[in-house]
């Protein structure tokens, strides 16, 4: 659209309005930069105190001035991984269902249902998880372990002495919370698959499932990967629900039924008690580490999706 920018009456107003909106847009950059700067500055004493062992040591003991976050990074990744492993099949199934299978009249209703899943505040999921789900899951964990106890790898992952508040419970709650995101973005991807591809597959005699595999999946692989990584990023950053159900025991363990801790959960649980000093700076430092990790995941997601888009448009 040609920009009508000329001298005369109103040019000043136009210029002023333009600057106003530009400043508003720039505020995003300013705030983001400010966040990065001030949190790093606040956390700096803790980084200096601890050095690189801040992220390589697995001992988190503020009372002894030891601030190693490796166990917390481990917990963050493990719970997010569990969430993604559970959520991806379900989300993709739902997205396919909504875009291909759902009866037209019910589609809006079902989309609303998935949206409501996203609308429930995370603290409510946490409340439900700690008071209802966790206690119910503990006997199930013990039963699962008694079944797989002898099996080499499974026996260690689904280990003994499971408790309701553990990596696994946190992962399950996170799965529920990231499902709507993965579903929504995947649905947008599936919907843009060219109709010609789908019709061609069907015309050649494919069943619906075969049409999915032939026409939809190859086309949408990049976009879906991006969706999954978005969900991963969201799961890593989730604070409150995890803080309530993870068990608050910073440790690295292959046993998913054990209690653990994540970067965000430790911040939420321990911040109130530390008023000053290196301990508080260390907690802000955890926030910086989390910030960096989620940005890396989100940037990777954007890159993958961007590549997939260009490939779909034929540029690659």
């Amino acid at each position, binding site marked *: 659209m040609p920009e009508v920018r000329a001298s005369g009456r109103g040019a000043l107003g136009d210029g002023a309005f333009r600057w106003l909106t530009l400043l508003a847009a720039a505020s995003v950059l300013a705030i983001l930069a400010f966040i990065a700067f001030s949190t790093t500055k606040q956390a700096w004493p803790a980084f200096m105190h601890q050095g690189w062992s801040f992220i390589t040591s697995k001992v988190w*003991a*503020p*009372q*002894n001035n030891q601030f190693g976050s490796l166990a917390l990074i481990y917990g963050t990744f493990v719970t997010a991984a569990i969430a993604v492993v559970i959520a991806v099949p379900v989300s993709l199934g739902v997205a396919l269902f909504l875009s291909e299978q759902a009866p037209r009249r019910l589609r809006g209703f079902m*989309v*609303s249902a*998935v*949206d409501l899943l*996203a609308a429930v505040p995370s603290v409510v999921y946490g409340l439900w998880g*700690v*008071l209802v789900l*966790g*206690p119910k899951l*503990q*006997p199930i964990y013990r039963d699962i372990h008694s079944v797989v106890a002898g099996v080499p790898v499974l026996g260690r992952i689904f280990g*003994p*002495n499971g*408790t*309701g*508040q553990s990596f696994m419970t946190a992962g399950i709650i996170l799965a529920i919370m990231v499902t*709507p*995101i993965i579903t*929504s*973005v995947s649905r*947008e*991807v599936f*919907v*843009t698959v060219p109709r010609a591809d789908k019709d061609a597959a069907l015309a050649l005699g494919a069943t619906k499932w075969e049409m999915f595999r032939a026409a939809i999946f190859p086309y949408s692989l990049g*976009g879906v990967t*991006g969706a999954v990584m*978005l969900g991963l990023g969201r799961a890593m950053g989730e604070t409150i629900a995890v803080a309530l159900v993870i*068990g*608050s*025991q910073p*440790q690295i363990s292959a046993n998913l039924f*054990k*209690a653990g801790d994540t970067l965000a959960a430790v911040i939420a*649980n*321990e911040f*109130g*008690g*530390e*008023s*000053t000093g290196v301990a508080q700076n260390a907690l802000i430092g955890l926030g910086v580490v989390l910030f960096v990790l989620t940005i890396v995941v989100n940037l990777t*997601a*954007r890159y993958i*999706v*961007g590549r997939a*888009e260009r490939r*779909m448009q034929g540029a690659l």
Partner: protein
Amino acid sequence: MNENLTPTPGRDVPGRSHSLRGASGRPARRIGAAALGLTLALTGVACSSSKKSSTDTGSSGSTTPANQQLASATLNGDGSSFQLAFQQAGIAGFTALQPKVTINYQGNGSGAGKKDLGNQIVQFAGTDSLVKPAEESAMKGGAFLYFPLVSAPITVSYNESSIKGLKLSPDTLAGIFSGKIKTWNASQIAADNPGTTLPSDAIVIVHRADASGTTSNFTKYLTAAAPTAWTLGHGDTITWPDSQAGQGNGGVAQKISSTPGAIGYVDFSDATKSKLTFASIKNKAGEFEAPSLDGAAKAVAGTTIEPNLTYNALNVAGTGVYPITSGTWMLVYVKQTNHNIGEALKAYIDYLVTTGQKLATPSNYAPLPTSLAQSAVTQLDKLQIPSS
């Protein structure tokens, strides 16, 4: 596919619009200006915060009688969750008599309370553990006083429905909480409970995540009563073996009640309210005592009170004594900086150690022995409150 990675859930992929609606409706500019004005107005309200105007009506020096109205003041406190329930009852009772005074008490743990008082963020701290000599320099307001409030048992609560009336000796207790005894049917537990069938479930230890006076007292008890079996030291926080952590006494109580096979240490008041099952602990006289207010009172009666009104009621000798009894105190600075706040503080402490003691037993705390309560009232005179 558009570049939008911000999913807007529920929005159907849109088509192109054909709306040719005229240019009616409020311009965004007006909405923006209105919103800006609203923000400015709200910020203006926020900035012109109504500070409570202090009118000097209280007398300086002597304790304000309950029927004399204090000027308005806000007291903020933080600290021990052990005394939280007693503080809540005390606040309700006191502010009914002195409606102009507002008291807020958070139970973030003794460690947080001492730190907050040290930084003068709060006017008083609740604590079950003493300020260490090394920490005294962090108390920026100078010298401080301990005012005893109540005492209570620290229960060892457990969640194992098949065991009724669990008995534990200090060595077994130390073994359990240091992670050396891993199952309920271990030989040491069986030795303490002859004739009881014990399940083979795993034991889940629950400890305090926050810096806690209850932890300090519990671990001090284990160090005193089981010196060879307990090697993890004592303090507001220690390094625990594989276990779960709860925030505050309430958090630990909640974890115990929702985790079968769990065992942890919780103050008597919270544990009773959550209907937890207690273990009976072997005291110095060799008897297995269940936690009770009577047992706590006997422990306090059987120990020496220091000149600064602190005492150690752990592992006290005598019959009928509950061995893990903890006192709990209010910490305040000697030098008060504000007249109204100082007067309110003085009146509040006076209330808690005199009239307010009747709230102790119903809340499941043991009231102070009369002599100790009187010493506390006398110590109030040491507070230096500015005269206006």
